[in-house]
């Protein structure tokens, strides 16, 4: 057993539930429990008319609600070499997920992200077995967001557990870029870097980029932009957040 383990064992070993706490729990549980078993009766008497009224109201507003919930509002792409793009509704929940290459397709077979919050969906994608195989030491994990609420989404991504653990890079792109990326059959993140690369090297093609990992694309780009320190890894330090903000700023300008 290590010294750290010993210290933690000794410190936490002194924390105990008091007798008062145990007694209150036993009493509270056994007193409250019958009340928990009665809600069916109470529901019928009090809540059923109210619930029926609400159901009528909601069925009237159903189509409008469905339209609002299904309308794509934001796009988040997750790129390593597997490339996946999520479509989000107004509630930042995933309404669609599309793979942009074979590895991405395998991931979407492994995990179900539809209906989940974007952060939960991103976590599932990054932690999937297929994605884990690509997340080697030198891999680049890029999150690219196009949304009228990009700041909110990027803030969530930057402080998410997977972004911190796997040192994800967070960037913003314009909404117009989404259509251009889709025309090329690319994810938002990969398209963004492809466009920048093509500014320096006219021979580079979208098809070629689809098969190249984000890390390799960054390496190729850095040959032209040597000394441009714009890609900062997201970390739980203040300076790293500043770095992401700079990266975002650059992306916006690139596509204007």
């Amino acid at each position, binding site marked *: 057993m290590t010294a*750290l383990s010993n210290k933690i064992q000794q410190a*936490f070993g002194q*924390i105990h539930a008091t007798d008062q706490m145990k007694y209150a*729990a036993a009493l509270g*549980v056994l007193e409250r429990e019958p009340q928990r078993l009665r809600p069916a009766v109470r529901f019928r008497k009090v809540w059923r008319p109210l619930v029926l009224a609400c159901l009528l109201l909601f069925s009237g507003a159903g189509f409008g609600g469905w339209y609002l919930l299904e309308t794509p509002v934001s796009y988040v792409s997750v790129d390593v070499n597997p490339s996946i793009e999520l479509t989000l509704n107004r509630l930042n929940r995933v309404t669609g997920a599309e793979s942009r290459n074979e590895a991405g397709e395998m991931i979407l077979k492994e995990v179900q992200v539809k209906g989940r919050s974007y952060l939960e969906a991103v976590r599932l994608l990054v932690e999937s077995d297929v994605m884990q195989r690509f997340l080697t030491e030198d891999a680049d994990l890029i999150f690219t967001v196009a949304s009228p609420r990009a700041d909110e989404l990027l803030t969530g991504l930057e402080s998410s557990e997977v972004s911190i653990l796997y040192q994800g890079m967070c960037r913003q792109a314009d909404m117009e870029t989404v259509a251009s990326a889709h025309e090329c059959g690319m994810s938002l993140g990969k398209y963004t870097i492809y466009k920048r690369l093509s500014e320096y090297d006219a021979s580079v093609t979208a098809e070629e980029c689809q098969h190249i990992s984000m890390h390799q694309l960054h390496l190729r780009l850095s040959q032209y932009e040597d000394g441009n320190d714009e890609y900062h890894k997201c970390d739980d330090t203040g300076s790293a957040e500043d770095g992401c903000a700079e990266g975002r700023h650059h992306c916006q300008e690139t596509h204007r």
Partner: protein
Amino acid sequence: MRSEREVNRAIELYADMIRRICLLHLKNHADTEDVFQEVFLKYILYSGVFESGEHEKAWFIRVTINACKDFMKSLFRRRTVPLEALSEDTASVMPEHQEVLEVVLSLPPRYKDSIYLHYYEGYTAREIGSILHKKENTIYSLLSRGRELLKKELGGDGIE
């Protein structure tokens, strides 16, 4: 539904552990008591069968962590906890262990469960992953970064 005898047995067996997990998340005596009751209420109403004692223990860990998180999300709950409330729960701890406890409690929330489950309860990364529904690799990273933070705060010497 479980009998009164089963509830009393579970309270005797898991009350200390639940109190420790509550301490990681809530740091407040009154909130701990609320979560305490919620956990045992869930237990009495839980109709599933536990395959073993370990299975039951893991269920209590998971339910307690979820109950703490739900409690923290509560709209009506005060978001800040005065410092006196923190010392209220750790006051009984011997001074030489108080520092360790406070350093663990001051870790960012994402590390605390893994650190506690590994170093106090003795679970492996794989077991913690299964309890917390996270990938084993994620737990390794959480443990590694959590350990670095602990070493930094407690001083690196003699805690390898």
